[in-house]
């Protein structure tokens, strides 16, 4: 079997799906790209069993055939070749792959394509279309708050709930929770899935910069994302997502509105002086002034700053993990954000003051208990 392809076109497609391949896969064949040639079309698959990505491109070829090609060597070769047509010659008995270019010839040992694990077929139980902008903003807004705790698998992914009026994305690590709702995506028959973090991270890096359409199809066990000429298939997390609505306080009477950038830069400075384990900062809201302070008793470090804010409610002193606050504020775009608080040991809400009309963002963060309330 033989085919000719542009080195840069192939490199571009391989690079976009290469992220799936792990350095030390469960089965060694997963260190390969699966090449399938059919009627002048090359379909390339990369997989780690949980997640697979598929891309396709036109090649010049007279025969059909399949081969598994070592990913690392192939990518490194293509990266270092000047743009030119390259010829792949595959010996179907020995699985050896020979690449010829203007510069020379490279021979590498491929593997039998039939050993490559089968990627589940698209069975469109359920489908919804969204734009890449919407999907990437949903991912960016939620993925940072997912948990690493593999003993609570449901929380290692992002929960997606499609209803007839909106779609809600939720992530939580047990200390904070993000609810990102879109009213511009909806579906008549409601459905919920949990998408693993790795798949979302891959999507995040592969979604094209220009806005196009993404088709999301899913059934009970797998989700399929299709955009441009790329397909991603991931196994869903088959767990019950925590009952997140119950932990969002309905009414937090103490409201503070503050300039997001001012608050963020202040927090970044104060956090330097916070305890390195707890990252605890103290917020003291009195009248229309917010005092932010931190101390690290181990090193006798301390810092405090004052900012003005709009405040509606009684004076309050509450502790938070500075890193959580910084991460959350960093992910918002609104110029001003409002904090909805109740008690120093109850969840606080962060809500952007200005939101896109199709968006509804709510961020929840649990406090760090201060040891002394003055």
């Amino acid at each position: 079997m033989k085919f000719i392809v542009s080195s840069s076109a192939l490199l571009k497609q391989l690079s976009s799906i290469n992220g799936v391949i792990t350095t030390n896969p469960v089965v060694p064949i997963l260190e390969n790209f699966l090449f399938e040639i059919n009627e002048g079309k090359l379909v390339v698959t990369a997989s780690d069993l949980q997640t697979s990505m598929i891309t396709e491109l036109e090649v010049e070829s007279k025969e059909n055939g399949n081969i598994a090609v070592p990913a690392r060597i192939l990518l490194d070769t293509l990266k270092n070749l000047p743009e030119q047509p390259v010829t792949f010659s595959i010996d179907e008995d020995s699985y050896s792959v020979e690449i010829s270019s203007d510069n020379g010839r490279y021979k590498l040992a491929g593997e039998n394509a039939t050993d490559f694990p089968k990627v589940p077929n698209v069975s469109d139980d359920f489908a919804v279309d969204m734009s890449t902008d919407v999907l990437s903003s949903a991912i960016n807004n939620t993925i940072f708050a997912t948990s690493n705790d593999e003993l609570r698998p449901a929380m290692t992914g992002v929960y997606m709930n499609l209803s007839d009026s909106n779609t809600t994305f939720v992530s939580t690590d047990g200390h904070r929770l993000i609810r990102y709702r879109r009213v511009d995506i909806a579906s008549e028959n409601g459905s919920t899935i949990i998408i693993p973090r790795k798949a979302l991270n891959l999507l995040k890096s592969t979604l094209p910069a220009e806005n196009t359409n993404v088709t999301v199809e899913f059934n009970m066990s797998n989700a399929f994302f299709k955009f441009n000429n790329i397909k991603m298939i991931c196994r869903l997390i088959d767990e019950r997502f925590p009952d997140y609505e119950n932990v969002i306080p309905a009414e937090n009477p103490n409201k503070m509105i503050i300039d997001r950038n001012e608050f963020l830069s202040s927090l970044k400075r104060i956090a330097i002086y916070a305890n390195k384990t707890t990252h605890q900062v103290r917020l003291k809201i009195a009248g229309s002034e917010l005092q932010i302070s931190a101390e690290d008793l181990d090193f006798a470090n301390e810092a405090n700053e004052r900012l003005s804010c709009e405040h509606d409610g009684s004076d309050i002193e509450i502790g938070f993990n500075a890193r959580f606050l910084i991460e959350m504020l960093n992910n918002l775009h609104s110029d001003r954000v409002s904090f909805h608080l109740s008690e120093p040991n109850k969840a606080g809400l962060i809500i952007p003051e200005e939101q896109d009309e199709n968006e509804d963002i709510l961020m929840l963060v649990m406090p760090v208990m201060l040891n002394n309330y003055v």
Partner: protein
Amino acid sequence: MDAFFASVEQRDNPALRGKPVAVGGSSDRGVVAAASYEARKYGVHSAMPSMIAARKCPDLIFVKSRFDAYREVSRQIRDLFFEYTDLVEPLSLDEAFLDVTHNKKAIPSATLLARELKQRIFDETQLTASAGISVNKFLAKTASDVNKPDGLFLIPPDNVLDYITRMPIEHFYGIGNVTAMKMKKMGIIFGDDLRQYSESDLVTRFGKSGHFYYQISRGIDNRPVNPERIRKSIGAENTFSRDITEYSEMIDQLRNIAREVDRRMKKAETRGRTLTLKFKYHDFQLITRSKTISEWIDNFARMEPLIEEISSEIDPSEKGIRLLGVSVSNLEQDEDTRPGALQLTLEF
């Protein structure tokens, strides 16, 4: 206590007295846990594989360990310690640091106190002990190794430097075999040689421990006798009578050990966040793999999925595994010592 386990065996079984005795399994995979002084003459020492010990001393008598008996003696001597001071820091079943600066009996000399304590230990247990007396923990431990068995040795403050100067590096308490070898390669044979190195030199070569080596080479050790030494990990391990080569058997054995760790953790009323597995191969290559999670590891059910996850990258069929261990660290009490600051969690 001198040759602790072996001495207890000789005390309880007159037929063993005056004979070379090793406590531990005699099978071809056993290890000597303790050797009587008669056995030590032949070069038998603790942690030596039983096969080698038997070769060195053909008349060696192996006896099975009886930890209940040792624990009982341990309790007896500890009770005696507390008659003199509350500042007792146990090092093992049969060793402890005592700060007798202000002792309950107001004995003015530590040497007199040690002599009295040794006599009382003998009266109560018919076993001999060795004591080392000096101005800090490092020197006291060093002194205790000088005159064994039934020894009593004092390093007075004025003699500290003299003493350290000519002490072989491998006798320093806190310098293990590996470090001693490294130091010898650097030409450090005696305490005096170690003292020639600057503190920054030692830190560059040995990391954090460099500070410690610099200090002890000058006889300085300001660590207090700490009666409540914080336990850092809790674990269990098992050496098998034949190598494990099956993955499923390895997992089963790890589960068994984890159940034991679970039991010990409950007894100690503690829990941790890090699970560490230890694998020793047939060729004694040792690897450890650990995983830390944000939740408490407080029972077997929490350990099981972690064990499976960590073990998935271990292949026992290659070399065969002779020892498996499971331990939990990052224990709760470490964190509790930090004042205040508690990250609250959502209650799902």
